[in-house]
């Protein structure tokens, strides 16, 4: 998918250089902020590794053809988006200069098409969200295959778009896109499988090398105290503030009953019902979500806050009691 200089105009080449340079500058800024000098030699070796593995032909079963590794997705899973983007730039520049694979003027396009999507979209859209909860073989395989397919599809579409904007080919956009997309779907699938195989191997032998898997899980987990505090604030805001704006219209059940029975409240008669009503009247501190014998708005707010507080106390208390009880039972 490396674009040659002949396929682009200077305007498109310049614009893509600017876009890639801006992304590279942001990546450098982030790497400096992260301050991980140990990553610098690792990036160099990883770039060379992508080169070396691209020389190995992996047989695709049942087809008689072969494929190679998808660099962007593999690097982003091991180095993170910023370091992998810079590594890919180095790889693409060397491929362009030493192996004539991709043009010097088209370098900005190639960096965008092959590094940006794989390193940034592959990481932020797929790798990080999928590995945030739990790290597993299935998730790694899914992220690798989806990542490679997505990034290659976007890359191939960008090649079509950049060639079209350059006014190089007389080929209509639809036909060009229809030629490029399906072939890259197959390539993406194969590259995804190879990338998955390598990442699963790393996961099984040295999982600490994979990005975000352990640290992110711990980082995102909130402490009990923070969770309770957030819930309390939310309850205060919703119960005390938003309850004032609550609709005075009947709810779904009341609305249905009104339609069927002609009244929102059903009348029940009998000694049992009378006794229950008397007990409820005594225990209800805030009947109809307001102070007794008062229609003030403060009563509605107070009802919301008090109700939420009681629910939190009951739920958290219940859970703590359950945990204490379970622990005691386990010790026994």
């Amino acid at each position, binding site marked *: 998918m*490396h674009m*040659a*200089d*002949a*396929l682009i*105009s*200077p305007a498109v*080449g310049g614009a893509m250089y600017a876009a890639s340079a801006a992304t*590279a*500058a942001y990546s*450098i800024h982030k*790497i400096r902020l992260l301050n991980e*000098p*140990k990553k*610098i*030699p*690792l990036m*160099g*070796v*990883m*770039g*060379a*590794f992508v*080169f*070396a*593995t691209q*020389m*190995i*032909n*992996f*047989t*695709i079963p049942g087809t*008689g053809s072969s494929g190679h*590794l998808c660099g962007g997705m593999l690097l982003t899973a091991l180095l993170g988006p910023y370091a992998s983007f*810079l590594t890919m*730039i*180095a*790889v693409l520049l*060397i491929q362009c*200069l*030493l192996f*004539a*694979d991709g*043009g*010097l*003027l088209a370098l900005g396009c190639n960096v965008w098409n092959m590094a940006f999507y794989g390193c940034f979209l592959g990481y932020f859209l797929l790798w990080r969200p999928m590995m945030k909860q739990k790290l597993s073989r299935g998730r790694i395989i899914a992220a690798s295959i989806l990542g490679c397919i997505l990034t290659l599809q976007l890359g191939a579409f960008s090649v079509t778009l950049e*060639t079209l904007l350059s*006014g190089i080919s*007389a*080929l*209509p956009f639809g036909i060009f896109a229809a030629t490029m997309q399906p072939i890259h779907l197959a390539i993406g699938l194969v590259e995804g*499988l*190879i990338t998955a*195989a*390598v990442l699963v*191997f*790393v996961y099984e*032998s*040295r999982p600490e*090398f994979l990005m975000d898997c352990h640290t992110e899980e711990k980082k995102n987990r909130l402490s009990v105290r923070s969770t309770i505090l957030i819930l309390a604030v939310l309850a205060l805001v919703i119960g005390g503030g938003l309850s004032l704006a609550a609709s005075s219209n009947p709810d779904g059940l009341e609305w249905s009953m009104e339609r069927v029975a002609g009244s929102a409240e059903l009348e029940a008669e009998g000694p049992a019902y009378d006794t229950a009503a008397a007990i409820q009247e005594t225990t209800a501190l805030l009947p109809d979500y307001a102070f007794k014998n008062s229609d003030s708005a403060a009563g509605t707010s107070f009802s919301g806050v008090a109700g939420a507080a009681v629910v939190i106390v009951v739920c958290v208390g219940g859970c703590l009691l359950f945990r204490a009880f379970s622990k005691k039972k386990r010790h026994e």
Partner: protein
Amino acid sequence: MDELAARDTWLNRVHPLAKLLVTLACISVTVSFSKYNLVGLLVMAVYPASLFILNELSFPDALRRLRVVLPLVCMVGLFNPFFDREPAASFGSFTVTYGMISMVTLMMKGILAVLSSYLLVASTGIESLCYALRRLHVPAILGTQILLTCRYISLLLAEADRIVQAYSLRAPRQKGVHFKVWGSLAGQLLLRSMDRANEVYESMSLRGFTGEFYDHPKNAFQWKDAWYLILWLLLIAAARYFWR
């Protein structure tokens, strides 16, 4: 390529920054010609042709590099005669269409761009090019990456070659690597590479590495480099102006 770059010829002695700027200008102007401007592209061929002859570089070696870049260019260009059938000239019963001309110019642009970048690398070397990029205020970390990757490529290629050779000796008459060992084969190489990177980092740290790469050019930018740059820029600009 390193051997070519290490030769002591007049072009190799020109400052890397001057050669980089001339190459970028040449490629930009080459691809800026309209898709029917065959004459302009023939004039632009003077740059690589003259330097190939003056610097005694092998033309077939350079053309061999085209096998990587030409397939996509050809794929795009081959459709032009089918979609652009407007006649441009006739030679007896044979009609040359604009689509045919645009196909040829597309291929010529591809060939000229590859030859120009080949000239740059064959006369400069990757280390000097990184130095030139640094002079253009490209961040040091990027230059460091390019140099480190370059230094490791040969090492890891040799290691990958050994792994594949060992595998093929155990699996004769098998094309490529079987899918059951994809992960372990490439994964072993990856883990070995990462361990090697850590060792390199430790030894670099012991020698005072702080993330910056310091390089000094063999020669400072001199008048002859400035003349080389100015003359070629003028010639390229003239070609663009007179054969637009």
